[in-house]
């Protein structure tokens, strides 16, 4: 894929943000949606608005209910309660074969007895589209997914990446209002996955279709999406743009699930208008946070600090706040950066990264067993109350 195409993604991703525009009506409106299988609650009272032309990722671990939510949108599962509206239309009484959605399955679900061409054409044949038009649209679609010349092959004669593109073509041929993708890149190897991510984004933008992608891979969610909804045990715990999810997680679960993070438990010692101070037993330190938090004295809170937010040194920093000290337990050299594991006096392990900016600083870099200080800015951590 050319670099120019990747840049178009940037402009869209940073361009329109319908979810901050009050006047914009949501395209998909999910309200109080619940699904239980017997005693097990797969999806628990989920409400979510998704806007036209968004590429929305549902992110969560296995069994968090993200696939069930997707299958309810497609019409394969009936909600136990709640409502789904697509483009203003209630979906409750509409069966899967009449919904304005199409789905790309994790297993691709290509019909093994039909050629690539027949697979892609299937949706149009069922709709009774004229033969000449079908041929034209199938050819167009195969060009879009770069599979010209494969029309007569059977799915069994294709590679994993080609099958993935056939599945995508088949799900797009009916020009659905909403495309649902269940782990679309899950079955591909790492390199192919990275290439395909950008292809997927390009196709989404050139066609202007709204995408909802289910994934368990946080990196994939960050790369693809306009917004991410993080799911845990059937609930949506946070919705936001990728950088907001990463930098402003609202709970320990989100902070921990997206990327790597160090969480210090502490109690409030001073609660002022524009700052908070905590004492952390675990970190053996006092913490100063440079903004107000609604809390009470002695309340238990957590401070989440990403490994790259630390500055690592062998010298004790000035001041009384916002640093911990420990010994280097483990160093992983990754080339562009080194990951340190620091063992604190309390027994807690802390991860910190140090970028290898200087080729000749091997001397200055802390080594195994050294006593080091990890300091952070008073705005670098995120205060979490849950």
């Amino acid at each position, binding site marked *: 894929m050319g670099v120019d195409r990747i840049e178009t993604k940037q402009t869209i991703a940073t361009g329109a943000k319908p979810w901050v525009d009050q006047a914009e009506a949501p395209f998909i409106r999910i309200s109080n949606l619940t699904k239980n299988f017997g005693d097990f609650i797969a999806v628990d009272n989920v409400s979510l608005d998704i806007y036209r032309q968004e590429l929305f990722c549902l992110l969560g671990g296995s069994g968090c209910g993200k696939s069930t939510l997707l299958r309810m949108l497609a019409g*394969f599962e009936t909600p136990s309660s709640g409502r789904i509206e697509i483009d203003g239309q209630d979906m409750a009484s509409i069966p*899967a*074969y009449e919904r304005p959605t199409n*789905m790309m399955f994790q297993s691709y679900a290509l*019909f*093994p*007895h039909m050629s690539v061409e027949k697979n892609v054409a299937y949706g149009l044949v*069922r709709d009774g589209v004229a033969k000449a038009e079908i041929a034209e649209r199938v050819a167009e679609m195969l060009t879009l997914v770069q599979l010209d010349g494969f029309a007569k092959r059977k*799915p069994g004669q294709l590679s994993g990446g080609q099958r993935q593109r056939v599945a995508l073509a088949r799900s797009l041929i009916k020009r659905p209002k909403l495309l649902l993708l269940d782990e679309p890149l899950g079955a591909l190897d790492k390199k192919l996955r990275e290439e395909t991510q950008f292809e997927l984004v390009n196709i989404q933008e050139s066609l202007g279709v709204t995408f909802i992608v289910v994934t368990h891979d946080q990196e994939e969610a960050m790369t693809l999406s306009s917004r991410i909804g993080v799911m845990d045990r059937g609930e949506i715990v946070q919705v936001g743009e990728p950088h907001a999810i990463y930098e402003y997680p609202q709970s320990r679960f989100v902070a921990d699930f997206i990327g790597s993070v160090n969480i210090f438990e502490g109690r409030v010692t001073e609660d002022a208008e524009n700052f908070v101070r905590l004492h952390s037993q675990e970190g053996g330190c006092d913490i100063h946070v440079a903004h107000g938090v609604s809390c009470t004295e002695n309340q238990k809170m957590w401070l989440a600090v990403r490994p790259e937010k630390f500055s690592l040194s062998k010298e004790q920093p000035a001041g009384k706040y916002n640093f911990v000290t420990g010994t280097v337990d483990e160093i992983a050299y990754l080339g562009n950066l080194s990951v340190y594991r620091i063992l604190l006096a309390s027994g807690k392990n802390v991860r910190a990264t140090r970028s290898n900016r200087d080729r000749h600083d091997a001397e200055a870099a802390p080594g195994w067993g050294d006593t080091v200080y990890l300091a952070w800015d008073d705005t670098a951590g995120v205060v979490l109350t849950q």
Partner: protein
Amino acid sequence: MKKKPWFLSIAAVLGFTFLYAPIVSLIVFSFNESKLVTVWSGFSTKWYGKLLEDPQILGAAWISLKIAFVSASLALVFGTLAALVLTRFGRFFGKNLLGGMVTAPLVMPEVITGLSLLLLFVAMESAFGWPAGRGLLTIIIAHTTFCMAYVAIVVQSRLVDMDESLEEAALDLGAKPARVFFDVTLPVIAPALISGWLLSFTLSLDDLVIASFVSGPGASTLPMVIFSKVRLGVSPDINALATIIIVIVALGVAIASTQMKPARDS
């Protein structure tokens, strides 16, 4: 090529001898000139000629083929429906019972199946006059009953292996459920349907015990005729008949295996 261990070769030779020596001797003796089955006196095809003049054998063969064809086809339909119910309808009341009952004829001694069917047919006839008497129809019903179990097992295992998202994908692309079945489910399980039908056909053709119970005058199947003839002493024309059957079956198996190959590849 790696050299094969000698004991494996010996085991293979012994195994094949054990399985095929009787069949080979049967074929050889079908060309025997002598009236005595076990004494070789010269090459001749006269028993084949005799066979073609025997209206009893030919009639029985024709009856057996008709029964096998009809009951295999009926068993295919009912067995497939049973397999679909057991794999595609989720949980429902009595599912385990149905599953057990569908497969019960597999393990039921044939004598008991035959006897119980006979009693049922007699009771039905006296209750509402159908089936009137016993013959072709009752044998077909009986064979359909136990062949259905085999079809259900074969088709069920194929349906379980089949990725259900294939059906969901067709539904998602706008096919109504009945359409999904004919466009996707049926082609995908076709190999199982073919083998289920062939299995039923063979089982029906082969059955002696159940047919003996539920048959009536004028509806003697080939196994019944052969068995009654052998009781009066083995005559060489039976060898000729057996040879013809073996050749037909071998051809059938060869054709089936070449036809099944492309289906399995996809």
